[in-house]
Protein backbone atom coordinates (compact mmCIF):
# COMPACT_ATOMS: atom_id res chain seq x y z
CA UNK A 1 0.00 0.00 0.00
CA UNK A 2 1.35 3.40 -0.97
CA UNK A 3 1.90 5.93 1.76
CA UNK A 4 -0.56 8.82 1.89
CA UNK A 5 2.09 11.13 3.34
CA UNK A 6 5.76 10.40 3.04
CA UNK A 7 8.73 12.51 4.15
CA UNK A 8 12.36 12.04 3.18
CA UNK A 9 15.20 13.63 5.08
CA UNK A 10 12.91 16.33 6.45
CA UNK A 11 14.94 18.91 8.37
CA UNK A 12 14.40 22.13 10.28
CA UNK A 13 17.06 23.53 12.60
CA UNK A 14 16.63 26.60 14.82
CA UNK A 15 20.21 27.79 15.05
CA UNK A 16 22.00 25.00 16.91
CA UNK A 17 18.77 23.26 17.93
CA UNK A 18 17.97 20.37 15.62
CA UNK A 19 14.19 20.42 16.04
CA UNK A 20 13.56 18.08 13.10
CA UNK A 21 16.66 16.32 11.82
CA UNK A 22 16.45 14.18 8.69
CA UNK A 23 13.12 12.49 9.38
CA UNK A 24 11.97 9.70 7.05
CA UNK A 25 8.36 8.97 7.82
CA UNK A 26 5.40 7.26 6.17
CA UNK A 27 1.72 7.64 7.01
CA UNK A 28 -0.30 4.77 5.54
CA UNK A 29 -3.78 5.46 4.26
CA UNK A 30 -6.51 4.64 6.75
CA UNK A 31 -4.36 4.18 9.86
CA UNK A 32 -4.30 5.93 13.19
CA UNK A 33 -0.67 6.81 13.62
CA UNK A 34 0.57 8.18 16.92
CA UNK A 35 3.62 10.39 17.22
CA UNK A 36 5.18 10.20 20.65
CA UNK A 37 8.38 11.27 22.32
CA UNK A 38 9.66 13.31 25.27
CA UNK A 39 8.95 17.04 25.53
CA UNK A 40 11.03 18.93 23.00
CA UNK A 41 11.47 15.89 20.76
CA UNK A 42 10.22 17.89 17.77
CA UNK A 43 6.72 16.42 17.42
CA UNK A 44 4.83 19.69 17.01
CA UNK A 45 7.55 21.12 14.76
CA UNK A 46 7.35 18.00 12.60
CA UNK A 47 3.59 18.25 12.09
CA UNK A 48 3.98 22.00 11.49
CA UNK A 49 6.18 21.07 8.55
CA UNK A 50 3.56 18.62 7.30
CA UNK A 51 0.75 21.16 7.57
CA UNK A 52 2.81 24.01 6.11
CA UNK A 53 2.80 26.25 9.18
CA UNK A 54 6.58 26.09 8.91
CA UNK A 55 8.74 25.53 5.85
CA UNK A 56 11.39 22.80 5.79
CA UNK A 57 15.06 23.72 5.28
CA UNK A 58 15.69 20.51 3.38
CA UNK A 59 14.01 17.23 2.55
CA UNK A 60 10.75 16.53 0.78
CA UNK A 61 7.12 15.94 1.71
CA UNK A 62 4.94 13.86 -0.59
CA UNK A 63 1.15 13.73 -0.41
CA UNK A 64 -0.10 10.75 -2.39
CA UNK A 65 3.12 10.92 -4.43
CA UNK A 66 2.85 14.65 -5.13
CA UNK A 67 5.62 16.93 -3.86
CA UNK A 68 4.01 19.51 -1.53
CA UNK A 69 7.20 20.64 0.25
CA UNK A 70 6.91 24.27 -0.94
CA UNK A 71 3.13 24.55 -0.91
CA UNK A 72 1.73 27.22 1.48
CA UNK A 73 -0.41 26.05 4.39
CA UNK A 74 -3.78 27.14 3.00
CA UNK A 75 -3.14 25.22 -0.22
CA UNK A 76 -2.28 22.07 1.75
CA UNK A 77 -5.54 22.37 3.67
CA UNK A 78 -7.36 22.43 0.35
CA UNK A 79 -5.50 19.29 -0.68
CA UNK A 80 -6.86 17.53 2.39
CA UNK A 81 -4.41 18.03 5.27
CA UNK A 82 -6.25 19.41 8.28
CA UNK A 83 -4.50 20.51 11.47
CA UNK A 84 -6.10 21.03 14.86
CA UNK A 85 -4.16 23.21 17.22
CA UNK A 86 -2.45 22.10 20.40
CA UNK A 87 -3.54 25.32 22.07
CA UNK A 88 -7.19 25.72 21.17
CA UNK A 89 -7.46 28.17 18.31
CA UNK A 90 -11.05 29.07 17.54
CA UNK A 91 -12.83 32.30 16.67
CA UNK A 92 -13.87 33.25 20.22
CA UNK A 93 -16.27 36.07 19.32
CA UNK A 94 -18.06 34.19 16.56
CA UNK A 95 -20.88 31.74 17.16
CA UNK A 96 -20.24 28.02 17.29
CA UNK A 97 -22.14 27.74 14.00
CA UNK A 98 -19.96 30.36 12.28
CA UNK A 99 -16.76 28.69 13.50
CA UNK A 100 -17.68 25.42 11.82
CA UNK A 101 -19.37 27.06 8.81
CA UNK A 102 -16.04 28.73 8.01
CA UNK A 103 -14.48 25.30 7.67
CA UNK A 104 -17.37 23.95 5.60
CA UNK A 105 -17.52 26.89 3.18
CA UNK A 106 -13.77 26.84 2.55
CA UNK A 107 -14.45 23.53 0.76
CA UNK A 108 -16.85 25.37 -1.53
CA UNK A 109 -19.73 23.27 -0.20
CA UNK A 110 -23.27 24.21 -1.23
CA UNK A 111 -25.22 22.64 1.63
CA UNK A 112 -23.60 24.85 4.25
CA UNK A 113 -26.34 24.50 6.85
CA UNK A 114 -26.61 20.69 6.70
CA UNK A 115 -22.91 20.01 6.68
CA UNK A 116 -22.21 22.46 9.50
CA UNK A 117 -24.90 20.83 11.65
CA UNK A 118 -23.62 17.38 10.76
CA UNK A 119 -20.09 18.25 11.90
CA UNK A 120 -21.43 19.70 15.14
CA UNK A 121 -23.61 16.66 15.75
CA UNK A 122 -20.66 14.35 15.18
CA UNK A 123 -18.77 15.83 18.14
CA UNK A 124 -21.92 16.28 20.23
CA UNK A 125 -22.19 20.05 20.11
CA UNK A 126 -25.63 20.21 18.50
CA UNK A 127 -27.89 22.70 20.23
CA UNK A 128 -25.00 25.07 21.01
CA UNK A 129 -24.94 26.60 17.51
CA UNK A 130 -25.96 30.10 18.52
CA UNK A 131 -23.54 30.38 21.48
CA UNK A 132 -20.46 32.51 21.23
CA UNK A 133 -17.48 30.17 21.08
CA UNK A 134 -15.76 31.93 23.98
CA UNK A 135 -18.71 31.07 26.23
CA UNK A 136 -18.09 27.32 25.83
CA UNK A 137 -16.34 25.24 28.47
CA UNK A 138 -12.76 24.22 27.74
CA UNK A 139 -13.76 20.67 26.85
CA UNK A 140 -16.41 21.94 24.46
CA UNK A 141 -13.89 24.30 22.85
CA UNK A 142 -11.63 21.31 22.21
CA UNK A 143 -14.57 19.53 20.58
CA UNK A 144 -15.33 22.64 18.51
CA UNK A 145 -11.73 22.66 17.33
CA UNK A 146 -12.16 19.02 16.32
CA UNK A 147 -15.47 19.76 14.56
CA UNK A 148 -13.71 22.45 12.51
CA UNK A 149 -11.10 19.91 11.49
CA UNK A 150 -13.74 17.32 10.56
CA UNK A 151 -15.79 19.87 8.63
CA UNK A 152 -12.81 20.32 6.32
CA UNK A 153 -13.54 16.77 5.19
CA UNK A 154 -9.82 15.99 5.30
CA UNK A 155 -7.88 13.02 3.95
CA UNK A 156 -5.42 13.44 6.80
CA UNK A 157 -6.41 14.85 10.17
CA UNK A 158 -3.51 15.94 12.35
CA UNK A 159 -4.48 16.12 16.03
CA UNK A 160 -1.97 17.90 18.24
CA UNK A 161 -2.51 16.77 21.85
CA UNK A 162 -6.30 16.61 21.50
CA UNK A 163 -7.00 15.17 24.96
CA UNK A 164 -4.96 17.73 26.88
CA UNK A 165 -7.14 19.17 29.62
CA UNK A 166 -10.11 16.87 29.00
CA UNK A 167 -11.86 15.01 31.80
CA UNK A 168 -11.67 11.20 31.86
CA UNK A 169 -15.25 10.81 30.64
CA UNK A 170 -14.58 13.21 27.77
CA UNK A 171 -11.49 11.23 26.79
CA UNK A 172 -13.51 8.01 26.43
CA UNK A 173 -15.98 9.55 24.02
CA UNK A 174 -13.11 11.24 22.19
CA UNK A 175 -11.44 7.87 21.61
CA UNK A 176 -14.65 6.43 20.18
CA UNK A 177 -15.04 9.46 17.95
CA UNK A 178 -11.52 9.14 16.50
CA UNK A 179 -12.04 5.42 15.94
CA UNK A 180 -15.13 6.21 13.90
CA UNK A 181 -13.13 8.41 11.52
CA UNK A 182 -10.96 5.70 10.01
CA UNK A 183 -10.48 4.39 7.40
CA UNK A 184 -12.11 7.27 5.40
CA UNK A 185 -9.84 9.73 7.19
CA UNK A 186 -6.26 8.97 8.11
CA UNK A 187 -5.31 10.25 11.56
CA UNK A 188 -1.94 11.46 12.77
CA UNK A 189 -2.03 11.97 16.51
CA UNK A 190 0.43 13.65 18.86
CA UNK A 191 -0.42 12.45 22.33
CA UNK A 192 1.17 12.28 25.76
CA UNK A 193 -1.49 10.13 27.36
CA UNK A 194 -0.10 6.61 26.83
CA UNK A 195 -3.44 4.93 27.53
CA UNK A 196 -4.97 6.87 24.65
CA UNK A 197 -2.04 6.06 22.38
CA UNK A 198 -2.11 2.32 23.11
CA UNK A 199 -5.88 2.25 22.82
CA UNK A 200 -6.10 4.07 19.49
CA UNK A 201 -2.92 3.77 17.49
CA UNK A 202 -2.38 1.12 14.85
CA UNK A 203 1.18 2.31 14.43
CA UNK A 204 3.49 4.48 16.49
CA UNK A 205 6.52 6.56 15.61
CA UNK A 206 8.83 7.69 18.41
CA UNK A 207 10.77 10.92 17.97
CA UNK A 208 13.75 11.89 20.09
CA UNK A 209 16.00 14.92 19.58
CA UNK A 210 14.40 15.53 16.19
CA UNK A 211 15.13 12.03 14.88
CA UNK A 212 13.06 8.88 14.46
CA UNK A 213 13.98 6.55 17.30
CA UNK A 214 11.62 3.74 16.37
CA UNK A 215 8.51 3.02 14.35
CA UNK A 216 6.14 0.05 14.54
CA UNK A 217 3.02 -1.43 16.06
CA UNK A 218 2.18 -0.66 19.70
CA UNK A 219 3.51 -4.02 20.88
CA UNK A 220 6.76 -3.60 18.92
CA UNK A 221 7.22 -0.15 20.41
CA UNK A 222 6.56 -1.39 23.92
CA UNK A 223 9.19 -4.11 23.45
CA UNK A 224 11.81 -1.83 21.90
CA UNK A 225 14.74 -1.39 24.34
CA UNK A 226 15.83 1.95 22.86
CA UNK A 227 12.35 3.38 23.35
CA UNK A 228 12.17 2.08 26.89
CA UNK A 229 15.45 3.72 27.69
CA UNK A 230 14.65 7.07 26.09
CA UNK A 231 11.06 7.44 27.03
CA UNK A 232 8.74 4.79 28.38
CA UNK A 233 11.02 3.53 31.08
CA UNK A 234 11.96 6.97 32.31
Amino acid at each position, binding site marked *: MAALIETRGLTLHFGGLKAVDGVDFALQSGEIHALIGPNGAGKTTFVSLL*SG*RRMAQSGTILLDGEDITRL*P*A*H*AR*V*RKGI*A*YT*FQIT*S*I*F*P*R*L*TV*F*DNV*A*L*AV*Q*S*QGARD*LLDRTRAALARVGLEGLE*AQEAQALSYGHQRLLELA*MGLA*LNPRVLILDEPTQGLAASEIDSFIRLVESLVPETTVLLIEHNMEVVMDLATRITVLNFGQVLASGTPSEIRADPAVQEAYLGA
Partner: protein
Amino acid sequence: MTGGGVKPWALHLALIAVLLTAQFWLSPYHATNLARIMVLAVFAMGYNLAFGYTGLLSLGHALLLAAGMYAAGLPAQLWGWGAGPAFIAGVAGGGLMAAALGLLALRTAGVSFMIVTLMFAQAGYLTLLYFAPVTGGDDGFAVAAASRRLLGFDLSTDTPRFLAALLIFAAGLLISLALIRSPFGRTMVAMRENEERSRMLGYNPFTVKLAALTISGLYSGAAGAAYALLFGYVGASFATIQYSILPMLYVLLGGAGTTLGPFLGALVMFTLIEVATGLTSAYLFFVGAALVALVLFAPKGILGTIRERWVRWLP
Protein backbone atom coordinates in the same frame (compact mmCIF):
# COMPACT_ATOMS: atom_id res chain seq x y z
CA MET B 1 -23.62 37.33 11.77
CA THR B 2 -26.40 35.29 10.25
CA GLY B 3 -29.02 35.68 12.95
CA GLY B 4 -32.06 37.90 13.00
CA GLY B 5 -33.81 36.66 9.86
CA VAL B 6 -35.62 39.45 8.04
CA LYS B 7 -35.36 42.02 10.84
CA PRO B 8 -32.06 43.54 9.62
CA TRP B 9 -33.44 43.97 6.11
CA ALA B 10 -36.59 45.62 7.46
CA LEU B 11 -34.52 47.98 9.61
CA HIS B 12 -32.28 49.03 6.71
CA LEU B 13 -35.19 49.54 4.32
CA ALA B 14 -36.97 51.58 6.98
CA LEU B 15 -33.96 53.88 7.31
CA ILE B 16 -33.86 54.37 3.54
CA ALA B 17 -37.60 55.16 3.56
CA VAL B 18 -37.19 57.74 6.33
CA LEU B 19 -34.33 59.37 4.44
CA LEU B 20 -36.49 59.48 1.30
CA THR B 21 -39.11 61.52 3.15
CA ALA B 22 -36.48 63.77 4.74
CA GLN B 23 -36.31 66.04 1.71
CA PHE B 24 -39.94 67.07 2.39
CA TRP B 25 -39.56 67.98 6.04
CA LEU B 26 -36.01 69.35 5.99
CA SER B 27 -35.09 72.82 4.79
CA PRO B 28 -33.17 72.87 1.48
CA TYR B 29 -30.04 73.80 3.42
CA HIS B 30 -30.32 70.82 5.74
CA ALA B 31 -31.37 68.51 2.91
CA THR B 32 -28.18 69.40 1.05
CA ASN B 33 -26.18 68.70 4.19
CA LEU B 34 -27.92 65.35 4.50
CA ALA B 35 -27.00 64.56 0.89
CA ARG B 36 -23.40 65.37 1.78
CA ILE B 37 -23.60 63.14 4.87
CA MET B 38 -24.97 60.26 2.81
CA VAL B 39 -22.07 60.54 0.35
CA LEU B 40 -19.56 60.67 3.21
CA ALA B 41 -21.35 57.69 4.77
CA VAL B 42 -20.72 55.67 1.58
CA PHE B 43 -17.03 56.47 2.04
CA ALA B 44 -17.23 55.40 5.69
CA MET B 45 -19.09 52.18 4.75
CA GLY B 46 -16.17 51.31 2.50
CA TYR B 47 -13.76 52.09 5.30
CA ASN B 48 -15.83 49.95 7.67
CA LEU B 49 -15.67 46.91 5.35
CA ALA B 50 -11.87 47.08 5.47
CA PHE B 51 -11.40 48.18 9.08
CA GLY B 52 -14.53 47.15 10.96
CA TYR B 53 -15.06 43.75 9.35
CA THR B 54 -11.68 42.64 7.98
CA GLY B 55 -9.48 44.34 10.59
CA LEU B 56 -7.40 46.35 8.12
CA LEU B 57 -6.54 49.61 9.87
CA SER B 58 -5.72 51.88 6.92
CA LEU B 59 -4.53 55.45 7.18
CA GLY B 60 -4.59 55.90 3.41
CA HIS B 61 -8.24 55.92 2.40
CA ALA B 62 -8.03 59.54 1.25
CA LEU B 63 -6.06 58.16 -1.69
CA LEU B 64 -9.02 55.98 -2.65
CA LEU B 65 -11.55 58.81 -2.22
CA ALA B 66 -9.40 61.09 -4.37
CA ALA B 67 -8.89 58.34 -6.95
CA GLY B 68 -12.64 58.14 -7.43
CA MET B 69 -13.03 61.90 -7.41
CA TYR B 70 -10.38 62.49 -10.07
CA ALA B 71 -11.28 59.41 -12.13
CA ALA B 72 -14.75 60.93 -12.44
CA GLY B 73 -13.78 64.62 -12.51
CA LEU B 74 -10.87 64.58 -14.98
CA PRO B 75 -12.70 62.85 -17.88
CA ALA B 76 -15.60 65.24 -17.28
CA GLN B 77 -13.23 68.21 -17.32
CA LEU B 78 -10.95 67.13 -20.18
CA TRP B 79 -13.26 65.21 -22.50
CA GLY B 80 -16.70 66.35 -21.43
CA TRP B 81 -17.94 62.97 -20.16
CA GLY B 82 -21.50 62.85 -18.83
CA ALA B 83 -22.34 62.08 -15.20
CA GLY B 84 -23.13 58.38 -15.80
CA PRO B 85 -19.85 57.33 -17.44
CA ALA B 86 -17.89 59.64 -15.13
CA PHE B 87 -19.44 58.00 -12.06
CA ILE B 88 -18.62 54.50 -13.33
CA ALA B 89 -15.06 55.64 -14.04
CA GLY B 90 -14.85 56.96 -10.48
CA VAL B 91 -15.99 53.67 -8.94
CA ALA B 92 -13.52 51.75 -11.09
CA GLY B 93 -10.76 54.25 -10.25
CA GLY B 94 -11.26 53.72 -6.51
CA GLY B 95 -11.28 49.93 -6.92
CA LEU B 96 -8.18 49.85 -9.11
CA MET B 97 -6.26 52.16 -6.80
CA ALA B 98 -7.22 50.00 -3.81
CA ALA B 99 -6.11 46.82 -5.59
CA ALA B 100 -2.76 48.40 -6.48
CA LEU B 101 -2.36 49.72 -2.93
CA GLY B 102 -3.25 46.30 -1.52
CA LEU B 103 -0.79 44.41 -3.71
CA LEU B 104 2.00 46.43 -2.12
CA ALA B 105 0.72 47.34 1.35
CA LEU B 106 -0.80 43.95 2.27
CA ARG B 107 2.69 42.49 2.48
CA THR B 108 2.66 44.25 5.84
CA ALA B 109 0.23 44.07 8.76
CA GLY B 110 -0.68 46.05 11.85
CA VAL B 111 1.28 49.23 12.48
CA SER B 112 3.41 48.72 9.36
CA PHE B 113 0.24 48.55 7.28
CA MET B 114 -0.93 51.86 8.78
CA ILE B 115 2.37 53.53 7.97
CA VAL B 116 2.63 52.14 4.44
CA THR B 117 -0.94 53.15 3.55
CA LEU B 118 -0.35 56.61 5.02
CA MET B 119 2.82 56.92 2.97
CA PHE B 120 1.12 55.96 -0.29
CA ALA B 121 -1.72 58.39 0.40
CA GLN B 122 0.77 61.21 0.98
CA ALA B 123 2.57 60.24 -2.24
CA GLY B 124 -0.79 60.44 -4.01
CA TYR B 125 -1.49 63.88 -2.58
CA LEU B 126 1.94 65.16 -3.65
CA THR B 127 1.39 63.69 -7.12
CA LEU B 128 -1.84 65.68 -7.42
CA LEU B 129 0.06 68.84 -6.46
CA TYR B 130 2.90 68.06 -8.85
CA PHE B 131 0.52 67.79 -11.78
CA ALA B 132 -1.34 70.94 -10.76
CA PRO B 133 -1.75 72.18 -14.37
CA VAL B 134 -4.05 69.19 -14.96
CA THR B 135 -5.43 68.47 -11.48
CA GLY B 136 -5.77 72.06 -10.31
CA GLY B 137 -3.65 71.24 -7.26
CA ASP B 138 -4.91 72.59 -3.96
CA ASP B 139 -7.30 74.98 -5.71
CA GLY B 140 -8.91 72.14 -7.64
CA PHE B 141 -11.48 72.83 -10.31
CA ALA B 142 -15.21 73.12 -10.70
CA VAL B 143 -16.95 70.34 -12.63
CA ALA B 144 -18.66 71.79 -15.71
CA ALA B 145 -22.45 72.02 -15.54
CA ALA B 146 -22.78 69.91 -18.70
CA SER B 147 -21.16 66.94 -16.93
CA ARG B 148 -23.52 67.18 -13.98
CA ARG B 149 -26.59 66.04 -15.90
CA LEU B 150 -27.98 62.51 -15.68
CA LEU B 151 -30.96 61.29 -17.74
CA GLY B 152 -32.09 64.86 -18.23
CA PHE B 153 -31.87 65.78 -14.53
CA ASP B 154 -29.59 68.54 -13.34
CA LEU B 155 -27.60 67.11 -10.43
CA SER B 156 -26.67 70.58 -9.22
CA THR B 157 -30.29 71.26 -8.21
CA ASP B 158 -31.70 70.21 -4.86
CA THR B 159 -34.11 67.36 -5.53
CA PRO B 160 -32.10 65.42 -8.15
CA ARG B 161 -28.97 65.83 -6.06
CA PHE B 162 -30.67 64.54 -2.93
CA LEU B 163 -32.21 61.59 -4.75
CA ALA B 164 -28.94 60.68 -6.48
CA ALA B 165 -27.11 60.76 -3.13
CA LEU B 166 -29.86 58.65 -1.54
CA LEU B 167 -29.75 56.15 -4.41
CA ILE B 168 -25.99 55.64 -4.07
CA PHE B 169 -26.28 55.48 -0.29
CA ALA B 170 -29.12 52.95 -0.40
CA ALA B 171 -27.28 50.76 -2.89
CA GLY B 172 -24.11 50.90 -0.79
CA LEU B 173 -25.98 50.10 2.42
CA LEU B 174 -27.92 47.13 1.06
CA ILE B 175 -24.89 45.71 -0.74
CA SER B 176 -22.84 45.93 2.45
CA LEU B 177 -25.60 44.19 4.41
CA ALA B 178 -25.82 41.40 1.82
CA LEU B 179 -22.04 41.12 1.75
CA ILE B 180 -21.51 40.74 5.48
CA ARG B 181 -24.31 38.15 5.68
CA SER B 182 -22.74 36.14 2.85
CA PRO B 183 -20.08 33.44 3.24
CA PHE B 184 -17.47 35.95 2.10
CA GLY B 185 -18.54 38.31 4.87
CA ARG B 186 -17.95 35.53 7.37
CA THR B 187 -14.48 35.00 5.88
CA MET B 188 -13.69 38.71 6.25
CA VAL B 189 -14.60 38.61 9.94
CA ALA B 190 -12.57 35.40 10.38
CA MET B 191 -9.54 37.25 9.04
CA ARG B 192 -10.08 39.99 11.63
CA GLU B 193 -10.64 37.57 14.51
CA ASN B 194 -7.92 34.94 13.94
CA GLU B 195 -5.86 35.08 10.78
CA GLU B 196 -3.73 32.02 11.59
CA ARG B 197 -6.77 29.83 12.17
CA SER B 198 -8.32 31.10 8.92
CA ARG B 199 -5.17 30.09 7.08
CA MET B 200 -5.39 26.61 8.58
CA LEU B 201 -8.98 26.38 7.36
CA GLY B 202 -7.76 26.81 3.78
CA TYR B 203 -8.11 30.57 3.26
CA ASN B 204 -5.31 32.57 1.70
CA PRO B 205 -5.15 35.68 3.94
CA PHE B 206 -3.57 37.79 1.20
CA THR B 207 -6.32 37.23 -1.36
CA VAL B 208 -9.14 37.62 1.16
CA LYS B 209 -7.71 40.91 2.41
CA LEU B 210 -6.98 42.11 -1.11
CA ALA B 211 -10.58 41.42 -2.13
CA ALA B 212 -11.92 43.22 0.95
CA LEU B 213 -9.67 46.23 0.38
CA THR B 214 -10.70 46.39 -3.28
CA ILE B 215 -14.39 46.38 -2.34
CA SER B 216 -13.57 49.12 0.16
CA GLY B 217 -11.93 51.02 -2.71
CA LEU B 218 -15.02 50.65 -4.91
CA TYR B 219 -17.09 52.29 -2.14
CA SER B 220 -14.51 55.05 -1.63
CA GLY B 221 -14.35 55.64 -5.37
CA ALA B 222 -18.15 55.83 -5.58
CA ALA B 223 -18.16 58.41 -2.76
CA GLY B 224 -15.41 60.50 -4.38
CA ALA B 225 -17.13 60.43 -7.77
CA ALA B 226 -20.49 61.28 -6.23
CA TYR B 227 -18.96 64.19 -4.35
CA ALA B 228 -17.44 65.56 -7.56
CA LEU B 229 -20.62 65.22 -9.60
CA LEU B 230 -23.18 66.25 -6.97
CA PHE B 231 -21.29 69.13 -5.38
CA GLY B 232 -19.34 70.15 -8.47
CA TYR B 233 -15.86 70.43 -7.00
CA VAL B 234 -12.68 68.37 -7.37
CA GLY B 235 -9.53 69.25 -5.41
CA ALA B 236 -6.37 67.82 -3.90
CA SER B 237 -7.53 68.74 -0.39
CA PHE B 238 -9.63 65.56 -0.49
CA ALA B 239 -6.40 63.56 -0.71
CA THR B 240 -5.02 64.96 2.55
CA ILE B 241 -4.59 62.97 5.75
CA GLN B 242 -7.73 64.61 7.13
CA TYR B 243 -9.85 62.55 4.73
CA SER B 244 -8.13 59.35 5.84
CA ILE B 245 -8.91 60.12 9.48
CA LEU B 246 -12.53 61.23 8.98
CA PRO B 247 -13.98 57.86 7.88
CA MET B 248 -12.17 56.22 10.78
CA LEU B 249 -13.79 58.66 13.22
CA TYR B 250 -17.22 58.12 11.67
CA VAL B 251 -16.83 54.36 11.93
CA LEU B 252 -15.48 54.41 15.49
CA LEU B 253 -18.24 56.76 16.61
CA GLY B 254 -21.08 54.88 14.92
CA GLY B 255 -19.68 51.44 15.70
CA ALA B 256 -16.99 49.52 13.82
CA GLY B 257 -18.30 46.31 12.33
CA THR B 258 -21.93 47.45 12.26
CA THR B 259 -23.65 48.12 8.93
CA LEU B 260 -25.44 51.29 10.10
CA GLY B 261 -22.53 52.63 12.16
CA PRO B 262 -20.84 54.52 9.31
CA PHE B 263 -24.00 56.51 8.54
CA LEU B 264 -24.78 57.21 12.18
CA GLY B 265 -21.19 58.25 12.85
CA ALA B 266 -21.11 60.55 9.82
CA LEU B 267 -24.47 62.06 10.80
CA VAL B 268 -23.49 62.72 14.43
CA MET B 269 -19.99 63.98 13.65
CA PHE B 270 -21.17 66.24 10.82
CA THR B 271 -23.92 67.68 13.01
CA LEU B 272 -21.54 68.15 15.92
CA ILE B 273 -19.07 70.07 13.76
CA GLU B 274 -21.92 72.09 12.25
CA VAL B 275 -23.24 73.14 15.66
CA ALA B 276 -19.78 73.70 17.15
CA THR B 277 -18.57 75.94 14.31
CA GLY B 278 -21.65 78.10 14.95
CA LEU B 279 -20.50 78.60 18.53
CA THR B 280 -16.73 78.90 18.31
CA SER B 281 -13.83 78.70 15.92
CA ALA B 282 -12.32 76.05 18.20
CA TYR B 283 -14.82 73.46 16.98
CA LEU B 284 -12.19 70.72 17.08
CA PHE B 285 -12.41 70.96 20.85
CA PHE B 286 -15.94 69.52 20.66
CA VAL B 287 -14.82 66.79 18.28
CA GLY B 288 -12.04 65.87 20.71
CA ALA B 289 -14.41 65.89 23.68
CA ALA B 290 -16.82 63.63 21.82
CA LEU B 291 -14.04 61.18 21.05
CA VAL B 292 -12.83 61.14 24.65
CA ALA B 293 -16.39 60.44 25.79
CA LEU B 294 -16.60 57.68 23.21
CA VAL B 295 -13.44 55.99 24.42
CA LEU B 296 -14.52 56.28 28.06
CA PHE B 297 -18.16 55.26 27.84
CA ALA B 298 -18.73 53.40 24.57
CA PRO B 299 -15.46 52.09 23.11
CA LYS B 300 -17.40 49.94 20.65
CA GLY B 301 -19.20 52.98 19.24
CA ILE B 302 -22.87 53.85 19.51
CA LEU B 303 -24.30 50.88 17.64
CA GLY B 304 -21.59 48.50 18.84
CA THR B 305 -22.67 49.26 22.41
CA ILE B 306 -26.36 48.96 21.58
CA ARG B 307 -25.72 45.60 19.95
CA GLU B 308 -23.73 44.33 22.90
CA ARG B 309 -26.23 45.41 25.52
CA TRP B 310 -29.65 45.21 23.95
CA VAL B 311 -30.13 44.35 20.28
CA ARG B 312 -28.13 41.21 19.62
CA TRP B 313 -29.35 40.70 16.07
CA LEU B 314 -28.06 44.07 14.84
CA PRO B 315 -25.83 43.33 11.83
